[in-house]
């Protein structure tokens, strides 16, 4: 309503609007079938943002994974990640050591990725 009102007051603006091209976006794309020309008319709604974006991966350092391990250890077992790693390396986390808790083994699987691999090699 407000734009119509303004157009009536300003006939020059109305003329200028009428002269604008009937489309807003012109896209040329060379495909194997030939030249593909796509136009989007004025007033045509924009395509919605694509929803099927594939989730990304944030590759983290050892410290980054230690944070994840800490978060999981606190959530699953109620101990810190450091505490868990210490107890796991000392062999204090057998399958029956934490009653009623599952997820210890999954934490142990993460420990491989947080360990200092060089430390495992024996010195000659």
């Amino acid at each position: 309503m407000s734009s119509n009102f303004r157009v009536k007051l300003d006939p020059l603006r109305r003329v200028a609007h009428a002269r604008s091209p009937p489309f807003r976006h012109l896209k040329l794309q060379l495909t194997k079938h030939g030249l593909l020309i796509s136009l989007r008319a004025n007033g045509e709604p924009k395509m919605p943002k694509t929803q099927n974006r594939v989730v990304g991966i944030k590759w983290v350092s050892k410290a980054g994974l230690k944070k994840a391990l800490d978060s999981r250890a606190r959530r699953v077992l109620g101990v810190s990640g450091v505490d868990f790693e210490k107890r796991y390396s000392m062999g204090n986390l057998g399958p029956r050591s934490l009653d009623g808790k599952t997820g210890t083994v999954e934490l142990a699987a993460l420990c491989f990725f947080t360990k200092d691999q060089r430390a495992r090699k024996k010195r000659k």
Partner: protein
Amino acid sequence: MPAKNANDADNNFAYFFRESLSVVTNSYLTGRREGDKRVLLYEPPVKLERKGGDPLSMAVTQTYLISGVNGGFKAKTTSYSYELMVKKDRNLETIVEFHWHPDITPKLKWPHVHIKGNTAEGELGRKHFPTARLAVEDFLRFLIRDFDVKPRLSYAVWKEILTRNKREFVANASWLDWKPLI
């Protein structure tokens, strides 16, 4: 068909995994490479949109190994953990956990599920109910079908993604002749 190099094998595997997860979430996965081993995980758990009921979250961990086969490279899953949680009184309470970790537990090689439930037998959480070898697509379908998790994509799209990726997973599986309970 094996990939030409280790990078392609890694990227292919990760792509299927990421694409399937995109059906229910858009959160970034955390990943870590250590030699020829990889881990992809959601930690802290990610929220899931639901048609009704208490809010749900899931935590996913997948470890895999890039190994050479028949003159090419292939990614092989070495363990998985798919966990579903519900938020009650600001705490995340686990409902069900699907696990498989044959390398870490030599005496427990079969894929299994932990179900939280109290029965006359007592707590069932520590019991390892045997299951088939699951793919993340199976877990996601289970969430959508039985827990009313709302997919982010239209029915036709998400169904096509999960079916295609599961088919690919089975076609490349190296565990089909594996006898888990023997």
